[in-house]
């Protein structure tokens, strides 16, 4: 059975810490960092390897901070 495996890269300088991406991730892959970016926002980051590359997080990110990758795994 072919499954998919995804990854996200958050542009942490672009992220404004709005948290909109967090609840839309069914894999609970995203959480807010305790660190601040240079603008003073707690940015989003990937916290597990469960991402399936569904792009939900990227779709709702107002700042276009998330890039999503996906591969098929057999």
């Amino acid at each position, binding site marked *: 059975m072919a499954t998919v495996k995804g990854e996200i890269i958050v542009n942490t300088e672009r992220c404004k810490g709005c*948290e909109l991406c967090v609840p839309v991730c069914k894999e609970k892959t995203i959480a807010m960092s305790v660190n601040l970016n240079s603008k003073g926002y707690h940015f989003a980051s990937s916290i597990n390897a469960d991402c399936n590359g569904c792009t939900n997080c990227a779709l709702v990110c107002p700042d276009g901070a998330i*890039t*999503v990758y996906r591969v098929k795994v057999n």
Partner: protein
Amino acid sequence: MSHIPTKDEICEPENMVYSRTCLLTDNALSYCPGCGHGTAHRLIMEVIEEMNLQADTIGVAPVGCSVLAYDFMNIDMQQAAHGRAPAVATGIKRLYPDKFVFTYQGDGDLAAIGTGETIHVCNRGENITVFFVNNGIYGMTGGQMAPTTLPNMKTATSPFGRDTETMGHPLKITELIANLPGTYFVSRQSVHTPANVRKAKKAIEKAISYQKLNKGLCFVEIVSNCNSGWKMTPLESNKWMEDNMFPYYPLGDIKVPK
């Protein structure tokens, strides 16, 4: 491959399934965290990129939080006076009937000071596309009441809530212009969930491709949040929007081509 790929292996260009369109510039958006304007910008630019329209597009953004849209959208743009984007777009489109011309307007802009221009651009059936971001408030100027503000909603100029007796009713301008023979496709969307983003993008695609047919005006309303104006966190505001805005401004197509 049967091994579980590493992050680096996955994050290769050929595996990229979503990234910011190149029709957005590198400038950081000036919007508050979580503001729907950003998503709306992105979707419009994605469609223009996908339809390969950059060289044919002229955008018009009047005053409102999105007044600096030209800093973010990598296309030719005109900044218009408050409320006058439809007239500005008319001026462009009449002289360049083959270009793709759109306006990007807020609810204060389109439904208050710009009401006359809105009605008449729709009535004339100008072959332009109007993107209408309705957040029920004047975001830019600090959260004052808009014509679209909900009953009893508190704003800087309705600090005790909008009293419909004295301040009027929320104006459903989208339903109004859908009645005019000059409009061709009228739709109301939101961009706060992945599913809604996908639907909104479809509507935007339609509104843009219909412009080619010269059948009249296409109008896409995006009901959106204003975290600063509503004084809520982005997540709270999206919830509030679902609970309060959508019943008044129900999502979906309002007028579709026969």
